[in-house]
């Protein structure tokens, strides 16, 4: 097992004829992901590295039986792309695009939900179930198959943490970057639940950052519903209030959303919080 993606994942790449879409389609295919097609309006019949291109997601689904989509289209068109995927019956939509207006994401999110599908992102690095499937832009070589689930709001910080885990012999069942925007799809609660129910996952690493109160809610949820060991890390202790720290969602507003509050929330329910990324594997080993 693993969560959300595995050997049964049949992936299409929306925006496959773009620079990033094409580059990562090829990377994902090389990794072993079953990339069955791509879309780019007006380019049906073309191929990107042997991957057939379709005019629409509906066509791609009909021809290939795709169940998962990854989106690389530019921000102004991303809302439409997300909704197109959901309308075509795609079950898992992963949106990599950065800089999408928040109200667009809200609209797309609610539409996707009404279709019974799931969204990951936007503004995220995607996800990976090592040795099974990569649906994202993560550097696959640092990952190792194993039993730690990783949930993160960040990109390179996730790689840093995973690198430390792998280095300590702790592989991953699935690692997910949920995205750095204020509004994104699947989040801590849903993913924690999936990891709790996944027999292949025996521990969880949660990488949070400043902004919002999702970490506080996650701490509460873990206390009540998660039996597997969890270690947390929070980025942004030195962030000044009112400033956006790279991610649109990483902003301390009106004194809430601080790292100190989040760390306190985890510690209050007995979840260890690592002071630096390299301490995460050590804390995890103490719990397993």
């Amino acid at each position, binding site marked *: 097992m693993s969560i959300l993606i595995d050997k049964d994942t049949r992936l299409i790449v929306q925006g496959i004829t773009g620079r990033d879409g094409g580059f990562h389609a090829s990377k994902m295919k090389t990794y072993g992901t079953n990339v069955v097609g791509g879309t780019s309006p007006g380019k049906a019949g073309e191929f990107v590295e042997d991957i057939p291109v379709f005019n629409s997601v509906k066509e791609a689904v009909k021809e290939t039986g795709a169940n998962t989509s990854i989106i690389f289209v530019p921000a102004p068109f991303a809302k439409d792309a997300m909704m197109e995927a959901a309308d075509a019956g795609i079950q898992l939509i992963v949106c990599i695009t950065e800089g999408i207006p928040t109200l667009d994401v809200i609209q797309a999110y609610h539409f996707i939900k009404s279709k019974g599908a799931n969204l990951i992102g936007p503004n995220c690095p995607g996800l990976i179930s090592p040795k099974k499937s990569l649906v994202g832009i993560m550097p696959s*070589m640092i990952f190792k198959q194993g039993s730690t689930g990783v949930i993160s709001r960040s990109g390179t*910080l996730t*790689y*840093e943490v995973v690198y430390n885990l792998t280095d300590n012999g702790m592989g991953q069942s699935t690692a997910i970057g949920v995205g750095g925007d204020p509004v994104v799809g699947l989040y801590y609660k849903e993913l924690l639940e999936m990891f709790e129910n996944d027999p292949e996952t025996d521990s969880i690493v949660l990488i949070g950052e400043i902004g919002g109160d999702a970490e506080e809610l996650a701490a509460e949820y873990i206390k009540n519903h998660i039996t597997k060991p969890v270690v947390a890390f929070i*980025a942004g*202790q030195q962030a000044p209030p009112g400033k956006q*720290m790279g991610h649109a969602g990483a902003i301390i507003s009106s004194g809430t959303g601080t790292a100190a509050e989040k760390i306190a929330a985890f510690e209050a329910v007995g979840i260890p919080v690592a002071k630096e990324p390299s301490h995460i594997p050590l804390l995890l080993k103490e719990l397993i």
Partner: protein
Amino acid sequence: MKIHEYQAKELFANYGIQVDQSVLCRSVDDAVKAYSQLDSQKVIVKAQVHSGGRGKVGGVKLANDEIELRKHASNILGMNIKGYTVDRILVGQAINISKEYYVSYVIDRNSKSTILMLSKEGGMEIEEVARISPEKIHKFVIDPSIGVPDYLAREAAFKLFDDLNLVRQAATIFQKLYKLFVDTDASLAEINPLVLTQEGNIIAIDAKMTFDDNALYRHPKIAVLNEPTEEEKREQNAKSKGFSYVHLGGEIGCMVNGAGLAMTTMDMTKLYGGNPANFLDIGGSSNPTKVIEAMKLLLSDKNVQVVLINIFGGITRCDDVAHGLLEAFKQIKTEIPIVIRLAGTNEKEGRALLEGSCFHVAETMGEATKKAVDLTYNYQD
């Protein structure tokens, strides 16, 4: 992006939300002229700055006559409010207030929706109400596919008013404010306070709006209202080069790829006893031109005594990153010590390339941070 109260009130008025009559003034003479135009003996003088809490620091004053108006206008103009110098004031008719309310639309991360927030505790900061008596705040989650239909606006208005005539007035305001919020891609539209006048009208006597930076491309009329501070200008300049930059004021300049890792680098600098000068995310690739631009930005901060470069090589391999850094530093002349930490794909090859260079090379984040902190103190000695 923030705008001023007077600009927000103009938007409100365009959407049919009644606001108090007011005139924007840039000088005491302007204010006196405005006073003669306003059909009111008593007027309110308000500083126009991109900051809340104006009233607490004397940025909002009631004037009963022209002499008081002159006094307040000249005191407030030029005043410094939380780092902003007041160059504009709004002179408006004083309203006979019967009761004050709070109304806003904001983005709620947890319900992944716009929400309408209301309270009978108007006039005070909503964070304060949330802290003291959260039960006095009413929230309505808006379904983006239907917006704010009549029944929902009415249900919300009944939280504030009992009189049906007032409920209808308020409900219309809620619908108009939502339309404005959506039409302009706002991230906040706040009326605090919305007042019931002694004459029985409901009007907005303050207006606050902020907008989604990611959506400004489709709102050129809003975008031109942007008034960045010197610091924001530096941040925007960095953004135009593909960086995210925030000035912090310490001695250790940080250059990192990725926002989360950049925040962690700052945190660890502090943890090891140093002070980060900045947050700087240079994004995905690390081509020489980008590194040169980033170094220029760091070195323009005269407090910087050491530069700490922390790059996680993912798709861009560490040996490529090392080549890029060596290339870039052929063109940068600086006495400042540089600590480089490379990790990820081909890290050993990357570090090997940097051996024998002028850089201080580190393997782990802990080692790199410690080196940077030590070098800061040596530099100071």
